[in-house]
């Protein structure tokens, strides 16, 4: 009889838990894998997060493949980087998705940049300056501290989409922020010896990372953002690196490294391919891994080249 009661009790418990289980998972589509990773960390098993761009893809040039439209058509939440980073491919996808929830102004539309302090906001915008972004540099997710603001924005949207999950999402957000604080201390400690170190970057996409870890990016291999490296620019960079004993060039997975390699050979330096997004390399599975990877890779190169 007691066994019967025990089974009965378990069944009641299961039934009570069932509504939470039966709650369909929220479909979250994010433009970039970093935003999808944050959504997955905050949403836990209550969301299905999908990223349109791959981690090793140039986020400026993603093709608006129709297959993404089917994903967006049934999305509850759409997270975008904003600041016109994805202007070539997010608007056409959203317009074809026929999903009012995720249009700008809809409850499921998340501009992850809301409230993020921006760098390099131009006083005037002219394409003479190359591919500039009129709202400011859009690569802000590369600063983990700004990741907290992204997480807050994503959290707000998840709560709007599923108010019943508020406590659950809040607990995950808290854990996310705590893990980030913990990790941040480690990352900063690791980078501390290299504060103020001058480096060169391929493309102007590291100002937030640079600011966070006290690096000093003095020039780029691209003469202007989006314009491929020219011999005159490379010569200028080589001279600069020789004069200032700069040894490290950082680049991104989607740029060919021939020009960076060439410059590095000339100055006896090193090229480090950093990850610009989650998934850039197989071991980078979450937003935290992204900085583990970048901090380790960069610290290793800086250590090897510091006399």
């Amino acid at each position, binding site marked *: 009889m007691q066994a019967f009661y025990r089974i009965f009790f378990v069944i009641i418990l299961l039934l009570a838990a069932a509504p939470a289980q039966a709650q369909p998972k929220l479909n979250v589509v994010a433009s970039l894998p970093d935003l999808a990773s944050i959504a997955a960390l905050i949403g836990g098993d209550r969301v299905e997060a999908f990223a349109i761009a791959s981690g090793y893809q140039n986020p400026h040039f993603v093709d608006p493949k*129709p297959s993404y*439209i089917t994903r967006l058509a049934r999305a509850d939440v759409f997270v975008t980087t904003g600041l016109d980073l994805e202007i070539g491919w997010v608007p056409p996808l959203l317009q074809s998705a026929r999903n009012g929830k995720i249009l700008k102004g809809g409850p499921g539309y998340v501009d992850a940049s809301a409230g993020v302090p921006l760098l390099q906001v131009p006083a005037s915008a002219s394409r003479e300056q190359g591919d500039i972004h009129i709202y400011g540099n859009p690569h802000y997710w590369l600063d983990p501290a700004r990741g907290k603001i992204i997480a807050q924005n994503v959290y707000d949207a998840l709560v709007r989409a599923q108010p019943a999950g508020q406590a659950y999402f809040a607990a995950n957000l808290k854990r996310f922020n705590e893990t980030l604080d913990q990790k941040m201390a480690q990352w900063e400690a690791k980078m501390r010896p290299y504060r103020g170190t001058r480096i060169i970057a391929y493309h102007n996409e590291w100002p937030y990372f640079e600011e966070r870890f006290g690096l000093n990016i003095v020039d780029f291999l691209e003469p202007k953002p989006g314009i491929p490296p020219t011999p005159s620019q490379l010569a200028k960079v080589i001279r600069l690196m020789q004069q200032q004993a700069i040894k490290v060039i950082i680049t991104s997975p*989607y740029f060919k490294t021939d020009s960076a390699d060439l410059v590095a050979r000339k100055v006896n330096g090193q090229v480090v391919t950093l990850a610009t997004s989650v998934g850039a390399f197989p071991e980078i599975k979450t937003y935290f891994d992204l900085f583990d990877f970048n901090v380790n890779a960069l610290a290793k190169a800086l250590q090897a080249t510091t006399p």
Partner: protein
Amino acid sequence: MALLLLLAAGTVAAAQDRDSTAAADSLLLELEREMAAQATTPAQQVARAAPSTNPDISVIGDGRAWYVSEGQRNVDAEFHEAEFAFRSAVDPYARADVFVAVGHHDGAFEFELEEAYLTTLSLPYQLQLRAGKFRSTIGKINRIHPHALPFIDTPAVYANFFGEEGLNDQGLSLSWLVPNRAFFQELTLEVTRGPAEGESFAFDEGNRLLYTGHLKNFWDLSDDATLEVGLSGLAGPNPAGATTLMGGLDLTYRWKPVRFNTYHSLTLQAEAFLSDRDAGDGGRVRAFGLYALANYQLARRWFLVGRFDHADLPDDAAWNEHAASLTLGWYLTEYQKIELGARTAWRDGTDPVFQALVRLVFVIGTHGAHEY
């Protein structure tokens, strides 16, 4: 005063970061950099808090020069077209797209409403309705504006069957995103009044309208490769007062590695149309046309397109026109390209006509969408 304070704050911040061993010139460089960064900071709030309800505006210029081996004037140049695009959401329910072109026709510039339509944003059942004047949803390239195509000359099948500018008419378009989870499928049905002129289809004095349908199927073969198969069907009045029926097939295979997607890519594309035109006098003309092209991206800025055309005339199945063309495109940035084209066209029993073209296309204003 505020600026002075900011500058002062900037100098202090710069001083903290400064490496004491720095050479004088690098110090100057750093100072300039800091000053530039500081000078732009106050704009931050202004730029983000200055929304505008103006539509997105862009102007696209298309200028051409050419040599042609037939006729009296063999060398010529023209500013082919300036297109003004205005695009914006109207309200939460619809968006509007208006394209006005000022084009060169026989020595004079003429205004033309290229497209102007309203598109719904959130109809139920994954439907989307478009109303106005628009390029018909048929085939693969008909929806694309000529300046965005990777070649200069219109494929013969389009030129012969629909006119140099493609099929562009006024009416309604309803498209349905088929709830197919296995692959992307979109069905578009359109009813339009009938184009003002054309051999295949033309405006009818009676109540007959032009009906078109297109089914687009799309598969991701892998992360790097996709396949698109489209089926088109058209039925409408022709200038002979009878009916033309048409069927079309379009195939596009695209290889574009996700990782280094700005360096190399390959597109293989073919379209074929079969037209069955009632001549009104009891006779019928069955005409056929196709083109096939390969577009290879040689390097970040260079594209090479080879194309073969074959086409009859919709009212003359014995026309048998052929053409082979090669276009080399140099894309300086996303906003400017220069194309060099060579084309030779021939018909059975006639001398081939050779043509060499240069085209310059530029875009100013809002960044347009990438084509896929």
